[in-house]
């Protein structure tokens, strides 16, 4: 479904990604791990066109993703969440989710200003869909609350709801459980598992919480200093000496 091949990104003298290649099969969950600064988020930014690699290709369902303008990525069925939350703080939770449906809307500026009947209809549909999602994720109570000022765990779910509103087939989660308490991590893992099944999602997850990654993913890719050092099933990765060295270091 997604094929990343040999992508390299350099920021000045720093090589953030160096010829990374891996594939993501339809319906699987792939974990992306690695020490801080390994290039995981940069890789995500390449997949959502926030950053253009200096070399390499990214193909999504046989389409060259790098040829698309950044705002078209959502329309192709790719959604993501952000490492430190990328919500719209002054919009309500419901509006945040409705922005997620932006790429599926048709309303243009003129039609919106005149509030044509089809605009009303679309608004109502999007609002209903957003409310369904909010109910599904247990956020109905805070639908009219501004996104700022809610607990962090709730905001993580709001962000997930917003990403689901894109109706993605590929969902990229950037450290979905960082900053959550122990109990919340388990709850969030259950939530991700159930929405994955329900919405038939393919997942790519960047996460430092190994329990979360190993429990969720079918395949794990480990990066270190921009290079892929290991790829395999969670069990293989846990035993891989290169991964252990990158994370824990070796005795001198």
């Amino acid at each position, binding site marked *: 479904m997604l094929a990343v091949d040999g992508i390299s990104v350099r920021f000045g003298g720093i090589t953030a990604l160096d010829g990374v290649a891996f594939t993501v099969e339809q319906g699987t969950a792939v974990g992306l791990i690695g020490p801080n600064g390994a290039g995981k988020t940069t890789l995500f930014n390449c997949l959502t066109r926030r950053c253009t690699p200096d070399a390499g290709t990214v193909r999504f369902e046989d389409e060259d993703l790098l040829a698309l303008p950044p*705002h078209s990525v*959502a329309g192709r069925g790719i*959604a993501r969440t952000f490492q430190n939350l990328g919500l719209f*703080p*002054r919009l309500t939770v419901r509006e945040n989710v409705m*922005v997620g449906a932006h790429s599926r809307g048709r309303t243009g500026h003129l039609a919106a200003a005149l509030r044509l009947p089809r605009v009303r209809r679309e608004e109502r549909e999007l609002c209903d869909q957003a409310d369904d999602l909010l109910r599904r994720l247990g956020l109905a109570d805070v639908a009219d609350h501004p996104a700022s*000022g809610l607990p962090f765990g709730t905001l993580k779910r709001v962000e997930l709801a917003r990403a689901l509103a894109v109706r993605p087939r590929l969902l990229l989660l950037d450290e979905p459980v960082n900053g959550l308490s122990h109990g919340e991590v388990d709850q969030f893992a259950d939530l991700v598992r159930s929405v994955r099944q329900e919405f038939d999602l393919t997942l790519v997850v960047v996460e430092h919480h190994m329990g979360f990654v190993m429990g969720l993913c079918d395949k794990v890719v480990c990066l270190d200093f921009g290079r892929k050092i290991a790829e395999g099933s969670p069990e293989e990765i846990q035993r891989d000496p290169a991964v252990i060295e990158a994370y824990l270091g070796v005795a001198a």
Partner: protein
Amino acid sequence: MSTITATLDTDRARRLRLALTALLAAVVTVGAPFYFAPFQVFQLTMVLLYAVALAGLNLLVGFGGQISLGHGAFFAAGAYTAAVMLDRYDTGHLATLPVAAVGCFLLGLGFGVPALRLRGLYLALVTLSFAVFLPPLLKRLEPVTGGSMGLTVDKLQPPAWSGLAEDQWTYFVVLAVTAVALLLARNLLRSRVGRALLAVRDNESAAEVMGVRLSLHKTLAFAWSALFAGVSGCVYTWVIGFVSPDSFSFVLSITLLAGLVVGGLASLYGPLLGAAFVMYVPSVAQDISEAAPGVVFGLLIIAVMFVAPTGLAGLAGRVRGAAVSRLTRTTSAAGDRTPGSEPSAPPTPADPAPVDAEPVGAPPRTEKE
């Protein structure tokens, strides 16, 4: 007390209250020109037409998170479009409105292009330069614009069937234009494109990931905003019947922006309050002293920024929020005073103390990264 607020908060009661407020507002706005003296009616008319310009500026600054110190120039462009059409081509007043609107829309579209690359102070400077160079340009183009003498054109005349005086008729025409403009702005905001605009303001990169085309929405915000300013300027010509380069110095742009900030950024009726500020404060201050308007204006802006950073429109909500949190604090403190219980700080649900929240009307963050 709580039961009363609970009943007041039910949906039906709210709808009823809304309908009553709307009815009252309609009666007051329609009745005003019959009650007040012609000069006061004229002042109200000016408030209405400034409100259109401020509503446009609000789209850009309050909801779009961009900034413009050049809206006086769009206002001037609209005013001159109307004046030149009336003076040279004798087109009739109504025909000038769409031309001014479309012309300023295109002008705004052009200015939206630098807005894609610049933000904050830099964008303010580019737009300010437009406001600074337009008056001398108007003086130079004497064959068309009448140079520094300006142009005198016909004001709106009431048709015989209406039976209204000139000031009353003008008031109603401007009222209609303002109502339509405010309605359009409101529709725009309560839609997919409005949400996109707000999303771009709050978090550009997240908005783009959600599929919002930044360039389109930013330039169109500028264009709409200029359209409203142009319409406002066009109506200004109808009302005043005279335009000259000195009526549209760059001070007008700054006054408009200040009026919007005082009225309330990102508020739907902030522009109306801001327009009243723009209209009345200088004229009231003038009674004190010739030099007073500038001083009073400045002091009031500082005062508003300190006391009510959400502007006049946000003031009511802030006062109510403060009252509610004080009320809950006292009631729950009273409830806590059971024997044996520790005097603890009671939770205040009305005040969620948002960590990184800015007040709704806060000036847009200019540097995001």
